[in-house]
């Protein structure tokens, strides 16, 4: 335990609170136990001057130091004003109750720490404990919001001094938790420490305009302006769909017209826009399955109507509401009976669970996950499937939002058990799975050395699980498949597999669920999954 960090250290001026030691990281199975490069790149002197990295030497936001004491004072006051709003029912009706519960009576048994993949993988860096953020927040509240008597604070040892440095570290620390809520699941009192990370982000974003640019400017703001968080406009979408139709014909010989803006269709399918840019085979597979099963479906070309992402769910209530409403408006203008969400975890949480109270009147169009629909298609025998076409080792990754948050556990397993003869579970799995390490937007945050951190630390447990699930077939010549029905998780796997050279060393490919279904379709001439495009 050489990393013992005290909360007092958190407020210490200058220097770094925690140092990630490569030797302390949780060991990976061979051949990943010997990595030549340093796990996390060091920032240059110039970068360090420009961006604050005094938490752990990693930068997700990279706040610039204040130019003057007045600026620093204004910064602190703004934060405290936001904090006060966080605890009023008028300003924070969304998450006030779970927030106060968590802060009020956590008994600090610390049992949740061992449930946290980031804390474990980092070699138990105290700074990453799920209880760390709530404890810091509790102290700030005790001193600056509740204004408790100094003697009482002394007795509770809850003193803290706020300065720019402390807040900059807190802002960064809020982006070291993937919001996977594994800690909340094991809490004996139901405290939700992950939510505290999200609420801290909310104060920084809603009150101070501070958020990683991938989530805000290039994320939800761009989505509301041009139509999708990837910057893809409706015109570009049409181009891509033409390309997708050609690809489908080339791969399967089928001529499929992807329905676009079809009025009165039964179901509007919304994909994560990342699929259009990075994984068009996912769209192709959806189109092939829905076409073969005779589902009456359509895509939309309205702003946000073709992009299921709603980054607000990770950092900002206002952006969240704006996007949710635009998505529902797109469905309303088409007059569809329901919205089906494609393979995207956070869109499930955002669209199905959280949007419930925002969509009023006729905007409240039923929203469903694509997984039960796919299960129904596969298990009912509506399309002819030949499992022997998927005769390679397959394991399943459970996206936290679908599985732990919503409890969609069985459909994807029933599908895989039917179509993949070599399906095996990783340990632990189902509702007790580990996060991919890219949760809550990490997979898209590309700031300086942050991608290194999420490959080396937050995704480490997942990589270990995947390698161990295939430990009976470690040879790279044997092609293996990790099924991850979530765009964000796939983004994390793409970066992490590249970082460790997983394809070269172990021959593991990642991809969605629908690709496996299409690959098993009996009447296709050639396999759908193209291993060479790893």
């Amino acid at each position, binding site marked *: *335990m050489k990393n*013992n960090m*005290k909360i007092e250290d958190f407020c210490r001026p200058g220097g770094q609170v925690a140092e990630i030691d490569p030797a302390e990281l*949780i*060991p990976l199975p061979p051949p990943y*136990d010997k990595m030549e490069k340093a796990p996390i790149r060091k920032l240059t002197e110039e970068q360090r001057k420009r961006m604050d990295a005094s938490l752990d030497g990693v930068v997700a936001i990279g706040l610039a130091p204040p130019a003057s004491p007045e600026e620093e004072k204004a910064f602190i006051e703004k934060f405290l004003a936001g904090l006060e709003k966080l605890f009023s*029912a008028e300003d924070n*009706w*969304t998450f*006030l*109750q779970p927030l*106060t*519960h968590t802060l*009020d*009576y*956590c*008994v*600090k048994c610390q*049992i949740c*720490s*061992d449930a946290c993949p980031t804390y*474990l993988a980092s070699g*138990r860096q*105290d700074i990453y*404990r799920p209880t760390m953020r709530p*404890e810091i927040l509790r102290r700030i509240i005790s001193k600056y919001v509740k204004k408790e008597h100094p003697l009482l604070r002394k*007795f*509770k*040892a*809850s003193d803290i001094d706020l300065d720019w440095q402390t807040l900059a570290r807190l802002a960064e620390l809020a982006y070291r938790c993937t919001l996977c809520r594994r800690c*909340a*699941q*094991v*809490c*004996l*009192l*139901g*405290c*939700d420490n992950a*939510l505290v990370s999200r609420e801290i982000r909310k104060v920084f974003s809603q009150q101070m305009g501070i958020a990683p640019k991938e989530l805000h400017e290039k994320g939800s703001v761009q989505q509301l302006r041009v139509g999708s968080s990837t910057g893809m406009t409706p015109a570009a979408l049409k181009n891509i769909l033409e390309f997708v139709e050609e690809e489908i014909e080339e791969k399967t010989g089928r001529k499929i017209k992807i329905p676009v803006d079809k009025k009165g269709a039964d179901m509007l399918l919304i994909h994560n826009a990342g699929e259009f840019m990075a994984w068009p085979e996912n769209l192709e597979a959806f189109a092939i399955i829905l076409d073969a099963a005779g589902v009456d479906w359509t895509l939309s070309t309205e702003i946000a109507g073709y992009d299921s992402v709603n980054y607000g769910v990770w950092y900002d209530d206002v952006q969240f509401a704006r996007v949710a409403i635009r998505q529902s408006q797109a469905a309303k203008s088409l007059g569809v009976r329901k919205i089906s969400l494609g393979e995207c975890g956070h869109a499930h949480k955002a669209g*199905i*669970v*959280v949007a*419930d*109270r925002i969509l009023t009147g006729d905007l409240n169009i039923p929203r469903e*996950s694509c997984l*039960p629909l796919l299960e*129904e298609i596969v298990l009912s025998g509506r399309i002819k499937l030949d499992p022997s076409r998927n005769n390679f080792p397959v394991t399943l990754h459970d996206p936290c939002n679908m*599985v*732990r*948050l*919503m*409890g*969609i*556990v*069985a*459909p994807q397993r029933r599908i895989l058990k039917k179509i993949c003869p070599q399906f095996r579970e990783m340990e*632990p799995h189902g*509702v*007790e799975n580990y996060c991919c390490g890219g949760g809550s937007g990490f997979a898209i945050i590309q700031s300086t050395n942050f991608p290194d951190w999420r490959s080396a630390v937050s995704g480490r447990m997942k990589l270990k699980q995947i390698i161990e699930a295939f430990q009976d077939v470690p040879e790279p010549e044997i092609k293996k498949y990790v099924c991850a029905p979530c765009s964000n998780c796939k983004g994390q796997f793409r970066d992490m597999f590249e970082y460790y050279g997983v394809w070269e060393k172990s021959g593991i490919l990642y991809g969605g669920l629908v690709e496996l279904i299409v690959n098993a379709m009996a009447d296709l001439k050639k396999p759908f999954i193209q291993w060479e495009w790893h």
Partner: protein
Amino acid sequence: MIEKHLGISVLAILILNLSALGIAFSPLSFLLTAILPYVAFVVFIVGFIYRIVQWAKAPVPFRIPTTCGQQTSLPWIKNNPLESPSNVWGAIGRMAMEVFLFRSLFRNTDVAIMGKRPVYGSAKWLWFFGLLFHWSLLIIVLRHLRFFIEPIAPWINGLSAIDGFFEIGVPTLYLSDAAVLAGLTFLFLRRIVVPQLRYISLVTDYFALVLLLGIVTTGLMMRHFFPADLLQVKNLALGWVTFAPTVPKGVGTVIYIHLCFVFTLLAWFPFSKLMHMAGVFLSPTRNLANDSRMRRHLNPWNAPVKVHTYEEYEEEFREKMKLAGLPVEKE
């Protein structure tokens, strides 16, 4: 750090101890026997209710339970009604498992790095001793009701009889007394022995444990080593209940310490993390049914929003818009 935090809490207990003794041997002893009981009890009840009202007033806009199993979905997909309840009965069942059996704590695993690989072990010790402590504390509190009720209700006698079933020693050692001591000792040692836990523990974490240990020890002392006159104690307790507090005689000094600790606990309770006793029932991650996909959850507190549509807007400003050269939909 640990020395400091633990030290402060032990010091606080010692101060309480001494003040209890000081009061006991001074003419002010009526403070402890006649005034403080009411003060502590009122603070406890009012504070307790205040905290609950504060929590209950906070809105719960949507369902955010933590699900630990398959939720209710298509009819042929087997759901898990207790781990992911879809109705109020399931939520009650889940809460019962949580409160009576500490289900979530049981779920925990421990991860140890052995050699070069992580090994998942069981973390059931905390569950076992935690459960032991809470159950025995409940039984002890219930047993104490015999001081406040005359005639003693048969179920209290029954409970005491079962608790002292093995008839070890004279007077009989209650199993719950031994269990509560074991539970508390485990919880206390865990905080001191586990380094990761020790350095993050604060004064209030130790204080709760040391205070409870103090109450239990003084209680055991009175029963087994320095017997208090039970009749006098009962008169004292009945005096409180009937609002005619008496000054007891011949009850020994230990009881003053015991009482002082109990009143401290009562008064401190509503402001401490011990409020988890009430909070666990209100915890939205546990007490909500996971029915987001089945039911619409209407927002009960929002007033209807007055909407100013574009048509109305244009109606109002049409002339001005025309003058400013802005396009209008209707002429």
